[in-house]
């Protein structure tokens, strides 16, 4: 078990992770499975019993979720329980261990919960398509390259749901059970909990498998919906791997371009031209993708796209000020420091460092970011290549 020892948080946070191949055929099934895993267990065989147990264990939090890491997905069980020294309850630690044991080893996977999982997942997927921003993102990613992992939605496919059979989920569960776990704990676990967590069969973290999205000709899709404003998502190939020496310059570039409210996109599209309320850029690190998202009126679409392109050209030509560059670096440094106040961020950072075999300390990372120069930023900017764009337009 990887342990991050601290007493500054009220909760102890525990992550039990499995790394699995990201696959078009299994992604929807895994989504069904995680609904079932958290629904009920052998000892807590109704939602009511499980809810009472969690509430009684001082609102212990339990969740299952999926996260993409390049060609892999992480299937995570997450637990958060209040530090026992804050609570004057005699059997509290036993309750926590019991719940963890039930959730991890004794889920009640029956046909009823299977049908319920399919129903809940279908509702969630339908709702995601209702939201123009989410729909635009999903479409833009699907246009990149149908053979690349980035085109596989982590939430699964609505169209696959109906044909999934209960036996397939049971079989998937049996396979998943055999995969060794990666266990993290942020906080200081009570000896009983420590013993329980250490008893989970564990593996060391496997090497990262990733491939960058290709710099192909751009694909576009335009849809109309009865909405109030147009949603735009663009995907750019960065051609920069997370393991490359250009990765930190890419982080600074993203910060200059559109990570926050002090950025070229925010300043020139929102503040100067009043074309939108929100505009930002973000990175999908393991796939080598940079996203730009905004919402504007259909009548301003062309102007908005022109301005976005202008800001990218500004980055390529290095026409940003020293101050903009320094602010972008400070913003990044601040973001790294803040992670120390969030248990899940601390765990994630540790996981990534192990996955990527990074050994540099926070101080070394900060020193490295401070040294990044204009040339390095222009270099990564010059590799940006638009590969797809989805536009959900409001009807005239």
């Amino acid at each position: 078990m990887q342990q991050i020892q601290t007493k500054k948080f009220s909760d102890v946070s525990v992550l039990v992770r499995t790394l699995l191949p990201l696959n078009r055929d299994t992604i929807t099934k895994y989504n069904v499975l995680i609904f079932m895993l958290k629904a009920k267990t052998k000892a807590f065989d109704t939602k009511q019993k499980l809810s009472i147990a969690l509430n009684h264990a001082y609102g212990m939090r339990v969740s299952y979720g999926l996260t993409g890491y390049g060609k892999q997905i992480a299937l995570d069980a997450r637990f958060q329980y209040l530090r026992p020294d804050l609570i004057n309850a005699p059997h509290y630690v036993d309750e926590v261990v019991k719940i963890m044991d039930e959730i991890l080893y004794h889920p009640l996977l029956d046909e009823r919960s299977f049908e319920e999982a399919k129903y809940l997942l279908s509702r969630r997927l339908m709702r995601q398509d209702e939201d123009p921003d989410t729909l635009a993102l999903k479409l833009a990613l699907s246009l990149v390259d149908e053979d690349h992992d980035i085109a596989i939605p982590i939430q699964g496919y609505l169209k696959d749901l109906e044909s999934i059979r209960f036996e397939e989920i049971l079989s998937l569960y049996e396979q998943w059970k055999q995969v060794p776990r990666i266990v993290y704990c942020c906080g200081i676990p009570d000896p009983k909990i420590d013993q329980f967590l250490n008893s989970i069969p564990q593996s060391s973290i496997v090497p990262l498998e990733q491939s960058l999205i290709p710099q192909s000709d751009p694909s576009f899709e335009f849809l109309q919906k009865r909405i109030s404003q147009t949603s735009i998502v663009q995907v750019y190939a960065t051609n920069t791997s997370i393991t490359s020496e250009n990765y930190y310059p890419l982080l600074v570039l993203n910060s200059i371009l559109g990570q926050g409210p002090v950025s070229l996109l925010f300043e020139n599209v929102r503040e100067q031209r009043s074309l939108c309320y929100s505009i930002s850029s973000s990175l999908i690190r393991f796939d080598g993708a940079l996203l730009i998202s905004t919402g504007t009126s259909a009548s301003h679409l062309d102007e908005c796209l022109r301005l976005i392109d202008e800001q990218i050209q500004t980055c390529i030509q290095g026409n940003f000020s020293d101050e903009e560059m320094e602010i972008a670096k400070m913003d990044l440094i601040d973001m790294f420091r803040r992670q120390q106040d969030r248990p899940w961020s601390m765990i994630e950072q540790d996981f990534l460092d192990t996955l990527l075999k990074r050994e540099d300390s926070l101080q070394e990372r900060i020193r490295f970011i401070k040294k990044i120069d204009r040339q390095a930023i222009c270099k990564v900017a010059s590799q940006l290549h638009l590969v797809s764009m989805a536009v959900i337009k409001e009807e005239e």
Partner: protein
Amino acid sequence: MNIEIQKKTLKNNVRVILIRKPDYVQSFFLCGFGTGGFNVLEKVGNQWIENPTGCAHFLEHQMFRYKNEDVTDLFARLQSQTNAFTSYSETAYYFSTTASIEEPLKLLLDFVQDLNITQETVEKEKGIILSEYAIYDQNPDFRLIKELYVSMYKNYPLKIDILGTEEDISRMSVEQLRAFYMRNYDPSEMVLVGITGLPLEPIFDLIEKHEENYPMQIKEKSRRQFLEEPKEIVRKTFSMDMDVAMPYIGLGYKLHGYPKVEECLKVDVAVALWLDCVFNPLNPNYQTWLDDQIISQVCGAESDFTKDHGYIIFYAQTEKIEEFKKIIGKIAANSFFVDKEAFESVKIQSIARNLRSLDHFESLAIENMRAELEGYDYFQALRIVEQLTFEDVMKIVDSLDFSQVAEVVINPENKEE
């Protein structure tokens, strides 16, 4: 808990609350004023003033100019991130940083106590706010709640969007914003909350010294006013079409407010506990509602009680509107048995949630500001749940009058109900 709390009222009447959380890297400071979307009607002395709707929110956007520069840029130069929000009853400005706090804290105090706007800056902001309006307008969850407020209230300004109407946003003038600022942004109306890992005394000294630059200006306080609100709802049913995959339904029960703060807090906590018992997996019928596909994960209940209003709202995205209405009707009639063990578990969970809230800088600061503006102590209020018994809660729920209910349905386009 390893936490230190200090409060002080300065000479100019700024109320300061500082909280120390040792070992934390970040610091979070927030300045709040008791003005928001509710500030449509105000009274100074005997004079009534009618503001354009959305005035407080528009001003919040414009406050980000200080000495002809964008405050966000100034904070960024100090390795700090800033933001603001406007709710119905308050407006708050804040920054957070992992670097030195001295300069950003002075900047926060300076920019909220200075107005630097022109007609040009006001005009420029309109497009941005109208885009923000559009984001909310196309969101079915938001529209459902907004239309429920419109259905429930005749005069009470919950029925008006915090952003205002599109017409008022488009017509907003520099004079209106300036007058609003002069009436409401005074040190005596301000609450400053800081949460940090740093020692508190030097911070108090810094704030105290800096606030000497800002004496109290207002002689007569402006107070927001509400027209008398009838007990009855305005629209019993309302439906509209949106580009959604499945209908949404909301049921809003119009209740009354509780003028005494202690009673109001008690009712607010009690009703929330009760809702956690009846419209939640703790209710054994919840599983049947799921099995019958009457509810999914998109459903919930929320309540709010202040001295001026009280309501409970239930909502869901469902094809089975009539079945959902029947369930909520039974809940409102208090006909579901509330299990005592379930109630005790909800109470424990609520106590734990309060403990956890102390780790979240932003919400902890906002809740402390809100409590100070409303006239109660946040940390004392956290203890209310410990004192509430099952019998107390059921007595409070029995006293609620569920006779006034408004229904709003959002249908998928081209689908007639």
